[in-house]
């Protein structure tokens, strides 16, 4: 199986896995989805609160994984809850990952067709994306990890640059008053804010590849902390520029934000296309990680040595699933569904499995 010494990733790479996987297409709509639910300018507080909450869950996941250091979730779930139930759970999760990668591919195609390649058909945008992803994932977890290491600094720098250049249209009054309507609206929006951290559960799959397993908790904290900071900056600057009433009507608030200012005197006046080109890399990262997670899950369930055949089998499925939503509302709906699923399932599943393992240990210990 894929646990020979070559397939080991460093702590830093694990952080990259988490951060890149969490940061995906969602950030482009994040300020709107949050503000819609919260209704006050305090969405950013919600982000911080739910981020800390998600870190807690991730630490529980690490706790669970530590009991089975050389097995992934797909394998140890069978040990914990029995073979068949384990396989069923794993299958559901594999389907989730396939849908997630399909969603990322589709959102990439939607935004690309919006701004960059207006006349190009969807399939022509998606195909190269899928194929290059396939090529990368064939290389295994090490190639993916190295790729993420390259992508991350580029995207982060460009994204922050583009956001901070918009400082001219930022008005602090739009974010005030802080907690003016009390903490209640923030709590109400907490589930939505948590959805944006979907992807934290990838620890269940990649833990077995970690070289220094004792650093897993640290990796989880940093891996979620990076998107946390990122999200907070984005929400603060976009809501601060458009005000609450302005942001809820924008389909892609972050894209509108970067199109709302012009910087004279720099080499470029406009940064929207840069943002999108760069952000495609980030969407690509989310896509390949979930693609990888689905394929390796299949391989482990069917106890196969290589996961390559599964990669080739999954690719057309991803394409078909990606084509299911008929329009942009369908795409958004799919995103919501996936976010909800991930948050509730992995939250509940982790606690449940942790509980089962505790009980089993107790029982075994007594015997």
């Amino acid at each position: 199986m894929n646990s020979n010494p070559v397939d080991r990733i460093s702590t830093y790479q694990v952080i990259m896995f988490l951060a890149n996987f969490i940061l995906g297409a969602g950030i482009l709509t994040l300020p709107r989805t949050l503000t819609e639910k919260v209704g006050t300018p305090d969405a950013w507080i919600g982000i911080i609160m739910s981020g800390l909450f998600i870190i807690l869950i991730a630490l529980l996941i690490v706790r669970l994984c530590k009991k089975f250091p050389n097995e992934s979730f797909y394998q140890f779930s069978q040990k914990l809850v029995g073979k068949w139930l384990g396989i069923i759970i794993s299958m559901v999760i594999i389907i989730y990952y396939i849908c997630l990668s399909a969603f990322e591919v589709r959102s990439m195609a939607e935004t690309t067709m919006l701004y960059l390649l207006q006349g190009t058909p969807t399939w022509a945008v998606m195909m190269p994306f899928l194929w290059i992803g396939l090529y990368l994932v064939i290389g295994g977890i090490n190639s993916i990890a190295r790729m993420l290491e390259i992508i991350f600094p580029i995207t982060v720098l460009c994204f922050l640059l583009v956001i901070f250049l918009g400082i001219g249209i930022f008005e602090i009054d739009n974010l005030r008053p802080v907690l003016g309507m009390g903490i209640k609206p923030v709590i109400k929006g907490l589930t939505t804010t948590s959805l944006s951290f979907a992807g934290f559960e990838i620890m269940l799959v990649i833990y077995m590849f970690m070289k220094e397993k004792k650093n897993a908790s640290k990796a989880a904290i940093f891996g979620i902390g990076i998107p946390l900071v990122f999200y907070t900056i984005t929400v603060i600057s976009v809501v601060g520029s458009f005000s609450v009433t302005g942001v809820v009507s924008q389909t892609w608030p972050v894209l509108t934000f970067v199109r709302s200012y012009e910087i004279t005197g720099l080499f470029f006046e406009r940064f929207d296309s840069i943002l999108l080109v760069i952000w495609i890399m980030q969407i690509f990262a989310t896509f390949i990680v979930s693609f990888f997670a689905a394929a390796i899950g299949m391989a482990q369930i069917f106890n196969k040595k290589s996961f390559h055949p599964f990669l080739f089998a999954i690719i057309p499925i991803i394409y078909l699933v990606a084509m299911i939503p008929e329009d942009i509302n369908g795409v958004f709906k799919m995103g919501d569904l996936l976010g909800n699923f991930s948050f509730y399932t992995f939250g509940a599943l982790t606690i449940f499995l942790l509980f089962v393992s505790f009980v089993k240990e107790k029982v075994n210990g007594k015997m």
Partner: protein
Amino acid sequence: MGKCKQTLLLTFMLLSILVLLTGCWSNKPIEELNIIVGSSIDKDQDQQIKSTLQYVVPEAMAKKAGGSTSQQKPYINVSAVANSLEPAGWKTTLKREGIIFGPHQKTVIISEDIAREIPLRQITDLYYRDIDIRGSTHVFIAKGRADQTLETKEQNVIPALRIAEIATQSFTTEVLTDTTLMKIWGRMNSGSSFLLQMLDSTSGEVSFNGAAVIGNTSKMIGFLNKEEVQGINWLNGEGKGGYVKAYLKDEDKPTYYQIGSMKSKIKPHVNGKNISFDVSIESEGRIAEYWNPHLKEAFNNKNVKHIEKAAEKEVQRLIENVMKKTQKELKVDVVGFGNELRIKEPKLYNKIKNHWDEEFSKAKIHYKVDLTIKDYGMLGSKNDK
């Protein structure tokens, strides 16, 4: 065998690259684009909407750079009449070849007739929805015909760009700080009133003149002249420069205070049902012109203070003047008092926000103006003899 397979694979890959790399799938040759820099919306005689698009003519610009004088204008205005902007835009393509290309649009000018009749939110919907048009586009209201503001007799000037330049670069308090599509978006959606810069082309030349008051129905309901706009800029402290009259009696002869910086603070107070505001304005500046016949030297601080007092009185007058008009006559809050109340007392504001303009007209407002003359330029005194 293995080698043969590899060669075949390689051949296949190279061939597919040949297919994939040749294309610019959705390319648009730049010379076929009609690059819009500005557009205007007017009312046609038969109550329809007349949309005018201003295209740049790159050839005319190129000739200018070459040195030879050409008679060709660097812009062309194309207009069409329909019941909204989208069909009007398509109609222009029946008269002129090329693709309409929006990302370089800098100005939108809406005529007063339209603004008074159709909610701004509706008339500008296309600009917000269209992916090509940027949020940094400036919005203006035209006194008289809007399409005339996009004309000029001067050569080598593109009117739409000139207007945008004035809007972004102007320092005087007689002009509103530039209002772009994105800046008014939030206010328009939350149903608050706001101001838009007005353009005046009735004299044949375009000039910035006053402001249009957009009410909470998103329609234009009134007009502020240049003096009133000055008051507005003092109230929200957004002016970057400009002048203030600093003499009280006419025989004192012109003396002018030049604004270096200004700050304003609006503090809401709630006492039971009564809402009041304290406005405190601070500014620093210098004496720009001093014609005083009696020639009191500026080296003496007492005389400087005297001028300061006069300028403060003038600012106070400007503010009270515009507040009387907006608060008592038009009954709209265009300065953003409501926003300050929202920040200070969010719960109270939430209750009254739907009839805020009405509440506002009853609010008491106290002003405090504090100007400081930092210096008086290169002249301190003058030899009188």
